[in-house]
């Protein structure tokens, strides 16, 4: 066996704290290694050329690159060795940058550690076997979870690219948060005016199938071939009959249902259509408030409905769809105001959240666009906005910035002036975060042209005084306490992940961070991919972001899928489990433990039962390998021998 080892300087990143020459020197002493050299930037074009040439010149049949993390460049170098004629699995990477040169300060220790790590990689590569991927057919349909602006954009781009799309939306209508907004920064165009046409496109696109008021129950399969169980939740209205005429809503006697769409600004009816532009525009009964359900009698809507669409007996329905890729665009939630007791949100009716204020501003909102105080319906003249209400607040476990509230506060303050010309708005802020194109100009305009008074400091307390609310804060630039007697206080409540985010992540086999936002494959270079191939992210489910960024991600995720589906087949990862039928005793322990159901029992011609791996289903976790009592089932590329070779290379020295 002829192993070649290439040790990377990575400029000073590695060579600065590791004596790479000495690593090369020591490496040459390892049996099997016939060539070892160092290189400035191994991943650069000339660096890769050097590897290819060395393979030919030295007759190498195994290659080790000691450089950065394999999560960074393993693919790069696999392709390199393949181009030089070697099987791509005759390659190993030793991580001497992320795990050594960047975390250890002592050059001597680092160098010794690097030598050990290279020795382990050499030991492993000598155990490596050639592996060949096979191709499998793919189902070129796409599932989009969440019909907010990000999900809609992704769905439309995929559909326009010729793919069939299934959208599953949890709530009654698509549109997400954007459908609730009045205007949008930084141009103040009407939110629903720009979103509405997109929603209609979604509804009318022949390639898009929409399941509203539905949720994902189960996802099975792998990239290219998923089976998804969708739960169509009972609406108690037969949507195939409902025309959205709204007659039921008008006559329904139960007037105090919680209005989820309007974030409880005003109550709604037990049967309702959330907003005029809703898609689909269909009615739904809220059984928590409907008298037919709570008291067992009413039936008014059933009587009134001209198409006889009401069905109190309706049950959830389960539908299975087959798709090949999934875009997760489930968006975000906001904290409850009662997490901030010092502000009294929830206790004092005139302390409201930003999204509630958005509904007050909106012409199709509960007040028809008249700004009024919830307590007495009077027009407020003094309005105070409190930014970072819960955001950047470690004491309640939200250390991060919510990304877009600085901007929407400026927007809302400007709109307030437009609505009530003799009003005065105040904004308490810690920093004004407005780095987008035209953004800072926008927040400046609020101050320069609209006379919005910005106060640098946090609010400590809000308390009622007569009909007013006293907002007590600090002006840290003045170094004093300040008090404002306000008519209305708007809290820019913190953005958080959805309650079911973790639960969904489990179904999707994707990761989420401490705060429940989904984790991308690489924060800079793979922002819409996840570590699970076939699953992509778009919008605020990955982290708080505004509409332009959400739309950008929606398109990006769609383009990734269009690329993935550009051929008829996909290459499988050959690093899957394989059974040695001679060693297998047919105990079927592996069958029981495989989390993916990838192992089936198979009867041999002599009647013996053994395990058999379905290659396309096997995800390559290796759980079976550590379960098998006979060592009969081995995860390729991570076999017992390969791992023990590494252990021994380190320990037996």
């Amino acid at each position: 066996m002829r192993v070649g080892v290439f040790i990377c300087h990575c400029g000073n990143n590695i060579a600065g704290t590791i004596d790479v020459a000495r690593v090369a020197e020591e490496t040459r002493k390892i049996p099997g290694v016939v060539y070892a050299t160092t290189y400035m930037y191994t991943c650069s074009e000339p660096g890769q050329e050097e590897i290819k040439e060395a393979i030919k010149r030295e007759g190498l049949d195994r290659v080790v690159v000691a450089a950065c993390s394999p999560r960074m460049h393993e693919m790069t170098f696999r392709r390199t060795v393949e181009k030089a004629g070697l099987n791509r699995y005759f390659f190993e990477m030793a991580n001497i940058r992320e795990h050594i040169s960047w975390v250890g300060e002592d050059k001597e220790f680092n160098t010794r550690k690097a030598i050990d790590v290279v020795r382990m990689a050499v030991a492993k590569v000598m155990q490596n076997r050639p592996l060949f991927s096979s191709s499998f057919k793919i189902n070129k349909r796409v599932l989009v979870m969440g019909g907010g602006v990000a999900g809609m954009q992704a769905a439309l781009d995929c559909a326009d690219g010729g793919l069939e799309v299934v959208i599953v939306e949890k709530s009654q209508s698509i549109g997400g948060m954007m459908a609730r907004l009045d205007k949008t920064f930084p141009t103040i165009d009407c939110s629903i005016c720009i979103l509405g046409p997109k929603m209609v496109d979604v509804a009318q696109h022949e390639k898009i199938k929409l399941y509203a008021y539905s949720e994902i129950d189960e996802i099975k399969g792998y990239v290219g071939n998923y089976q998804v169980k969708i739960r169509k939740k009972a609406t108690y209205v037969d949507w195939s009959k409902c025309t959205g005429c709204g007659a039921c809503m008008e006559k329904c006697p139960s007037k105090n249902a919680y209005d989820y769409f309007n974030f409880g600004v005003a109550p709604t009816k037990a049967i309702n259509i959330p907003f005029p532009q809703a898609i689909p525009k269909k009615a739904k009964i809220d059984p928590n408030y409907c008298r037919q359900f709570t008291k067992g009698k009413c039936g008014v809507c059933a009587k009134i409905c001209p198409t006889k669409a009401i069905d109190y007996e309706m049950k959830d329905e389960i539908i299975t769809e087959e798709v090949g890729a999934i875009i997760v665009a489930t968006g975000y939630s906001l904290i409850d105001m009662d997490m901030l007791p010092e502000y009294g949100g929830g206790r004092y009716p005139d302390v409201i959240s930003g999204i509630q204020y958005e509904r007050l501003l909106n012409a199709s909102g509960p007040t028809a666009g008249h700004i009024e105080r919830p307590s007495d319906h009077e027009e407020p003249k003094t309005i105070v906005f409190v930014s970072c209400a819960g955001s950047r607040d470690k004491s309640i476990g939200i250390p991060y910035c919510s990304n877009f509230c600085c901007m929407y506060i400026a927007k809302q303050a400007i709109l307030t002036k437009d609505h009530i010309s003799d009003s005065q708005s105040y904004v308490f802020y810690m920093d004004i975060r407005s780095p987008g194109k035209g953004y800072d100009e926008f927040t400046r305009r609020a101050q320069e042209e609209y006379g919005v008074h910005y106060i640098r400091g946090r609010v400590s307390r809000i308390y009622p005084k007569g009909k007013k609310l006293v907002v007590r804060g600090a002006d840290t630039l003045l170094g004093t306490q300040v008090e404002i007697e306000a008519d209305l206080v708007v809290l820019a409540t913190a953005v958080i992940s959805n309650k079911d985010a973790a639960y969904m992540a489990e179904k999707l086999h994707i990761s989420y961070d401490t705060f429940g936002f989904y984790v991308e494959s690489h924060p800079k270079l793979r922002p819409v991919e996840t570590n699970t191939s076939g699953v992509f992210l778009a919008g605020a489910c990955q982290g708080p972001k505004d509409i332009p960024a959400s739309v950008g991600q929606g398109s990006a995720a769609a383009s990734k899928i269009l690329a993935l589906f550009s051929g008829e087949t996909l290459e499988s990862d050959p690093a899957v489990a394989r059974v040695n039928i001679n060693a297998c005793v047919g105990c079927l322990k592996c069958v029981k433990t495989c989390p993916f159901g990838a192992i089936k029992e198979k009867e041999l011609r002599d009647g013996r039962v053994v395990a058999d791996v379905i290659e396309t289903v096997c995800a390559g976790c290796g759980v079976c390998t550590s379960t098998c009592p006979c060592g009969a089932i081995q995860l390729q590329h991570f076999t017992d021998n390969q791992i023990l070779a590494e252990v021994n290379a380190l320990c037996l020295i």
Partner: protein
Amino acid sequence: MDAINLTIIDRNFIELVKKESGENPYLCYQCGNCTAGCPYTTFFDYPVSQIMRLLQTGQKDIILNSRAIWVCATCETCTTRCPCQIDVAHIMDTLRIIARRENRVSEKDIKLFYDEFLSSMAKYGRIYELGLLLGYNIKSGHIMTDADLGPKVLTKGKIHFLPKKIKGRDKVSKIFERFKDRTRRDGR
């Protein structure tokens, strides 16, 4: 205020406060919430968030000579509401202790009151309110402090004319003595 020279930051002072309070002043991002909530801001020369800022830049003299650290009543408002979970009140307490140790007392009356309180405690084991008041009035030179309240309190029989001496008062004074020995030993 003169320009503060930031070329050299007094790290020793910052480290001392860090060690004695167990709090990290660099967690403070100057939001101003503590100042906003502090009931004493109007009586402070430097509002509490500025004390935090001065601490971050190691301004030992300004801080230890400030009135704020003495006027702070440990009401815990700042600690309760600090979004960075800093025990601000405890830092104020620590700064006051350091100031006292270095004999920098910008609020003599407050310190005197505390001292009288403690000496009453060391002497009797419990607080002898009348003695404490008289002692304070004489030493502070504010002979008439709360004289208006005298009749109210005395006629209600709320204040005892004689101190209650507890049996174990020597045990209390022993705590004070051991503490003094200790500080002497530590060379403070």
